[in-house]
């Protein structure tokens, strides 16, 4: 018997047919070689039939046609010689310095293949310690604005630099009077060049040259008051990190006042309730600002009451009796706090009235602030506006008595002067007007010569924002256009330098020389590497001396305040679509300015709610005989009998070429035109209503009358309270936090369950799970975010940084109005209602009135809550996607696969946090967005981050937790053969945060900051009870306030229970 079975492949093999045996060894039957085939004599006889021929022909034509349909080949040109330090795909960072005439910061610029694409604060060097603001981060987009001047202009025509320089030199030579009107110059080199210019011109006898510094937003009153009190026109340094008590009278120091990039960092460092002490912040203001919204106690005052508050506090500090207004309670609390923190407190006043600043000085002196929190030796060199001189010049020019040559550098007086229109007319009577400006703006378009300036990112510059620090701004890209450094222009006109062209070293050499003179032992390369260096300063021994108080503002029935919004500021960024679309931190309105008024006062006259289809009512405001019409916005916390209007809007009223995004667009694309065919500016310019006098004053008596009509408003948030929900934002007071256990300020949600004995017991939400959990602990990375609501000030820097990093499209006013902004990270702002003891805490659970809960309180406390994708471990979006386009990574990320997405939007509906954003249109190409989306502009496109896909129409997108950065971080660690260290990873938002409220990291790294934060007693997860198990933690907001009602609910009532 055979032991093995016999296997056969076919019947032929079984039967061993001759045929099979013949072909057995051949794997492929009929192995004819090509040679054999071609050698076949009959081959030539084989013919192609007519039909076959036609078939082949048809196929070839069709195939060729199809091939022709393919997109044209775009060639990528490789580097011929690889530049040093440039590796394609790897970013190069440059330390530099930002200064635009008002904001100042030490920054880091990220470049990719030679293009600057991202700016963040420099946390290692410079006194701003990483602080930035939305404008600084967004300024990178301005580099690629296609409306930037690409060449000099002479009488409105394109001209060469030599023509322009010759014309200007001749004009200066022949002039009797030359005036340079510039913004505040903090550049030692520019100052040196200007003084050379002055000495050159003034040497011949008589004063021929005059330099006037003029800022659109003036802080002259501070300098004048200090002149009176200290004998010197200085602004001292403020140190909010040393102040246990902060009293601000109308100073929005976290967002727009003086030096917010530094102040926000200092302030944030003392808002940590876990630290030894936490600052106490009292705020008095008319318009609810970013700073006011962060205050521990806030008093609503009219601008004219600022002096009253200061006077009251001075008197009370001196133990005298005084009368007070409705703000008495907050003032009293502030006084008692100030009394116990002498030498550890700061009083700041935002007004540009000299008398008010004198009072603030007096109070600071009483509190012993000078020498402790205020440093008179190390002074702030920003904001040197000379209001009186400017006003004289402006009226002279308007009257036709201007200088023979007027050079305007970094200023836009036609736009920003109260008598700008008259000034504009007067300009034509001046022999030669010269504008050094990046754009053909309101002023430049009227000038004889326009000398386009480099963008900051193309320019060598030096700065001395404070006396003890010298900083360098270095170019990060070769100039895109035929522009020049302002310093070089001045030097050329002064006859001390020759034009250097695109690769000019004139400014560089000059700055190097300035530095060498200032700091002979300093290493310039080292300076450039760090971007700044400390200088030794001498003590100036200034001391306070009382001086008679200058005139204080008069009160009026209704007063108007002209304030700045954190995104638009003084208007120089009106053409930046990122900033225009940045929701105002308090009102959440984009693309507009408006009249703010307390909704309680609006009741009955104006609409107090608004949505996509229901706009706001218009009103006309008259100030000093001038009037303008704007919509009235219901802003809780606005002081009664006051209104506020933001400056910086209404740019390009005559259709000047300041950038496509500075003008209104139509519903189906294209710019909106006014009746006379001009482009329509966004909002209204209220610089015309600013009053003049010893200084420019940003408040005035006003009359407001309702006007027929409504105006559509584009806000990213149309509901303003949290409706008593305690699982979204949580806030408590410092005393509850310090003195009670977690349940009093951060009670976790509990559900009922059955225990072993069948008894109902309460258990934390985390114990309940519908599904078997993804293994998340101790397995690889698990990325997470922690956001501290206590230190978040709501400034919006993170939002702009995210937009910049992740190529988030700009969608324009009409789309924002429809509720379709694309921001991956939004900052929710909640006002407390009268039904709540604090935001999210119901006063009375049983009798909670939802209608009242929808209305913000008269003077509400405010919580800012940055919200992005929560990267839920049990993500509801993931289960509902029919095509698995959104999935979970094994590192805890909720990933979006754009090219798999079919756009059902089910995921967005099922997201409890509503953070998903849908591409309703093809933003990179649809005509509606041509004017506003940088991705539709050949130049604007250069700002796009090459690591992040630009999304197409019909797909969902959302925060990726900067997955491109996570990958890069891991690769760097891998290349260095180590694990990822805590702190290696930063996201755009955490980079941008001036108060370090946002922390990212690997939660599985037990020693990481994120792990520590997530386990703190303040940590909670928003909507924890939904059970989605997010990877984002919030830290309870702790207010350093007294809140008896909250205390009662959370502590006394609890203990009884």
């Amino acid at each position: 018997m055979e032991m093995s079975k016999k296997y056969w492949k076919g019947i032929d093999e079984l039967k061993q047919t001759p045929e099979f045996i013949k072909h057995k060894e051949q794997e492929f039957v009929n192995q004819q070689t090509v040679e054999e085939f071609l050698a076949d004599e009959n081959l030539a006889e084989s013919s192609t039939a007519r039909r076959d021929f036609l078939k082949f022909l048809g196929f070839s034509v069709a195939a060729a046609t199809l091939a022709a349909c393919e997109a044209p080949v775009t060639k990528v040109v490789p580097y011929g010689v690889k530049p040093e330090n440039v590796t394609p795909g790897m970013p190069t960072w440059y330390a530099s310095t930002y200064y635009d005439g008002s904001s100042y910061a030490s920054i880091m610029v990220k470049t990719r293949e030679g293009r600057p694409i991202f700016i963040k604060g420099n946390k290692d060097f410079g006194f701003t310690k990483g602080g930035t603001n939305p404008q600084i981060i967004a300024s990178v987009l301005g580099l690629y604005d296609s409306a930037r001047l690409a060449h000099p202009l002479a009488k409105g025509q394109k001209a060469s630099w030599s023509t322009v320089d010759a014309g200007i030199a001749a004009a200066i030579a022949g002039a009797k009077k030359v005036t340079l009107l510039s913004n505040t110059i903090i550049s030692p080199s520019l100052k040196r060049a200007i003084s050379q210019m002055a000495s050159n011109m003034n040497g011949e006898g008589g004063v021929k040259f005059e330099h006037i510094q003029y800022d659109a937003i003036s802080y002259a009153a501070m300098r004048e008051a200090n002149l009176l009190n200290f004998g010197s026109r200085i602004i001292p340094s403020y140190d909010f990190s040393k102040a246990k008590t902060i009293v601000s009278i109308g100073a929005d120091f976290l967002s727009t006042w003086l030096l917010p990039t530094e102040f926000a960092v200092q302030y944030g460092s003392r808002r940590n309730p876990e630290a030894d002490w936490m600052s106490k912040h009292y705020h008095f203001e008319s318009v609810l600002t970013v700073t006011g919204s962060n205050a521990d106690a806030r008093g609503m005052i009219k601008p004219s009451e600022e002096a009253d508050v200061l006077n009251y506090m001075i008197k009370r500090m001196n133990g005298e009796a005084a009368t007070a207004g409705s703000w008495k309670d907050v003032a009293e609390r502030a006084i008692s706090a100030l009394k116990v923190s002498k030498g550890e407190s700061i009083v700041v006043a935002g007004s540009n009235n000299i008398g008010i600043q004198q009072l603030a000085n007096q109070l600071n002196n009483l509190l012993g602030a000078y020498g402790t929190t205020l440093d008179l030796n190390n002074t702030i060199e920003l904001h040197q506006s000379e209001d009186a001189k400017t006003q004289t010049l402006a009226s002279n020019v308007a009257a036709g008595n201007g200088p023979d040559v007027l050079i305007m550098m970094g200023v836009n007086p036609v736009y920003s002067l109260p008598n700008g229109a008259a000034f504009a007319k007067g300009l034509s009577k001046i022999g030669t007007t010269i504008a050094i400006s990046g754009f053909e703006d309101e002023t430049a378009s009227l000038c004889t010569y326009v000398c386009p300036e480099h963008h900051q990112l193309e320019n060598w510059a030096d700065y001395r924002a404070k006396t003890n620090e010298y900083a360098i701004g270095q170019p990060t890209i070769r100039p895109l256009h035929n522009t020049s450094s302002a310093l070089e222009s001045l030097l050329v006109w002064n006859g001390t330098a020759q034009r250097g062209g695109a690769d000019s070293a004139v400014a560089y050499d000059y700055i190097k020389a300035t530095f060498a003179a200032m700091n002979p032992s300093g290493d310039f390369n080292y300076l450039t590497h760090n971007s700044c260096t400390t200088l030794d300063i001498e003590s100036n021994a200034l001391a306070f001396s009382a001086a008679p108080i200058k005139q204080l503002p008069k009160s009026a029935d209704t007063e108007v305040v002209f304030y700045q919004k954190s995104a638009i500021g003084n208007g120089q960024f009106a053409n930046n679509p990122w900033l225009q679309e940045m929701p105002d931190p308090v009102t959440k309105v984009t693309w507009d300015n408006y009249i703010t008024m307390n909704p309680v006062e609006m009741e009955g006259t104006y609409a107090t709610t608004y949505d996509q289809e229901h706009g706001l009512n218009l009103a006309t405001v008259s100030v000093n005989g001038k009037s303008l019409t704007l919509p009235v916005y219901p802003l809780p916390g606005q002081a009664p009998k006051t209104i506020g209007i933001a400056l910086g809007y209404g740019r390009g009223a005559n259709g000047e070429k300041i950038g496509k995004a500075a003008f209104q667009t139509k519903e189906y694309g294209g710019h909106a035109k006014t009746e006379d065919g001009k482009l329509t500016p966004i909002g209204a310019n209220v610089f015309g209503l600013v009053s003049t006098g010893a200084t420019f004053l940003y408040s005035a008596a006003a009359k407001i009358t309702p006007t027929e009509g409504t105006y559509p408003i584009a806000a990213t948030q149309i509901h303003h309270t949290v409706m008593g929900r305690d699982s979204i934002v949580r806030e408590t007071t410092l005393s509850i936090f310090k003195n009670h256990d977690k349940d009093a300020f951060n009670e976790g949600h509990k559900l009922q369950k059955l225990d072993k004995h069948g008894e109902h017991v309460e258990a934390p939400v985390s114990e309940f799970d519908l599904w078997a959990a993804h293994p998340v602990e101790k397995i690889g990375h698990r990325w997470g975010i922690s956001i501290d609501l206590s230190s978040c000030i709501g400034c919006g820097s993170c939002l702009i940084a995210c937009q910049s990093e992740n190529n988030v499209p700009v969608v324009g006013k009409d789309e924002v109005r429809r509720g379709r902004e694309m921001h991956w990270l939004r900052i929710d702002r909640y006002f407390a209602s009268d039904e709540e003891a604090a935001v999210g805490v119901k006063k009375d659970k049983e009798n909670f009135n939802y209608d009242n809960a929808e209305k913000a309180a008269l003077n509400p406390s405010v919580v800012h809550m940055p919200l992005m994708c929560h990267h839920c471990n049990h993500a509801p979006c993931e289960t509902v996607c029919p095509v698995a386009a959104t999935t979970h990574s094994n590192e805890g990320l909720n990933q979006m696969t754009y090219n798999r997405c079919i756009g059902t939007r089910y995921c967005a509906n099922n997201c409890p946090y509503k953070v998903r954003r849908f591409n309703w249109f093809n933003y990179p190409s649809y005509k509606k967005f041509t004017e506003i989306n940088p991705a539709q502009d050949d130049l604007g496109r250069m700002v796009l981050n090459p690591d992040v896909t630009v999304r197409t129409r019909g797909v969902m997108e959302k925060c990726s937790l900067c997955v491109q950065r996570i990958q890069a971080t891991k690769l760097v660690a891998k290349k260095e053969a180590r694990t990822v260290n805590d702190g290696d990873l930063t996201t755009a938002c955490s980079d941008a945060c001036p108060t370090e409220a946002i922390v990212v990291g690997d939660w599985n790294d037990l020693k990481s900051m994120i792990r520590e934060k997530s386990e703190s007693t303040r940590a909670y997860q928003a909507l924890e009870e939904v059970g989605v198990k997010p990877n984002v933690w919030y830290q309870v907001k702790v207010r350093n306030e007294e809140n008896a009602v909250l205390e009662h609910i959370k502590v006394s009532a609890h203990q009884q229970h």
Partner: protein
Amino acid sequence: MQKEAAIREPLILGHKTYHDVTEDVCRPIEDKAPKMWYILFGIALVIGLYGVGSIMYLLGTGVGVWGLNKTIGWAWDITNFVWWVGIGHAGTLISAVLLLFRQKWRMAINRSAEAMTIFAVFMAGTFPLIHMGRLWVGYWVMPIPNQFGSLWVNFNSPLLWDVFAISTYLSVSLVFWYIGLIPDFATIRDRAKKPLSKKMYSILSFGWSGRAKHWNRFELVSLVLAGLATPLVFSVHSIVSFDFATSVIPGWHTTIFPPYFVAGAVFSGFAMVQTLLLVMRKAMALEAYIHTKHVEYMNIVIMVTGSIVGTAYITELFISWYSGVEYESYAFLNRATGPYWWAYWSMMTCNVISPQLMWIRRLRRSLLFTFFISIVVNIGMWFERYVIIVTSIHRDYVPAAWSMHFPSHIDIAVYIGTIGLFFVFFLLFARFFPVLALNEVKSILKGSGQSYKESPDYHKHH
């Protein structure tokens, strides 16, 4: 021959013979169409084409032409989808469930009800397609082998279940409807005089010869299909309701949704049948076959399902309060008293109050009143879906994201357009297809025909 109690109202009025039945059903097909048909068809076509044009614009530009936003990702699109699917429920219920329950009165209405079902499902199917951001890759919802790697659909997603549920429902309904049509097509074929129509109807009738074997198979297939279709009646809308019920959104996440949706669907489907048939019986002179008794039967179904729906509404309200869940309670409070209170109360009035009027015999036998209520019910059922979809997501968990929905003119155009298209299909059906299952009706003529019931012979057999 099955006999019916004499006291039961006859289902076929008048002295109809078998030939009369054939004549009555075939006449509209064989005659020239009346002017009114052309007018109605013209109007429906214009509206339908307007809708098609709007859909083209939508597909060319982006979903942004609708009034949706970051908070409200679905509104009119899915409302219309559910509304049409709901309407499409009556047909299969009448043909399958009532067949199994041997309800003879269904024979007069099943043909047009099924036609309505199929056209309604067509319209319903349009919305999930056009609501997609990228329709051109919509085939990715099919679990087909592909070259994208081991990329498969997500079987967890209720939307995927929808794909299967709707397509199964559509195909079974279509087959069922067509099988029923075969003998009737044969009748028309046999009577047709023009060669073209003879050819067309002979193709459509699949060589039906009327042999006993054919009838036997016909009956068997009908029964088998009825058996297959019956669970579908319940599954389709249950699965549609899963789109909402399996989510985490308060107001959507509701376990009573499947039965509540099915009842609602039958409710709206019967209302739509009423709307169509009340007009059709007049226009096509079918008063003898579809009369007050049929209408009354259908009104009773409307009353019962309407009551189930009403109970569901009230249960939802109670549970939202009883649950003690903050978001759930607010979702329902907001429905009733929030910015969309008018939609909620329209729904409550139309769907809860109007069916209760059917308890009154005089009203449920009034054709005019029935017609009015049938329209009211369908308005109410549209609002029901709008209320569920929009008022739940417009204010869900995070108040900062709360929003409002306002339809754009494209939203309205697409919706109205599908109504137009639906009538285009239905009018074509009425013109070229036998609107009454004539061979089935013949089977009850002697059992339930008026003249037979009144004839003295009828009683003798007992």
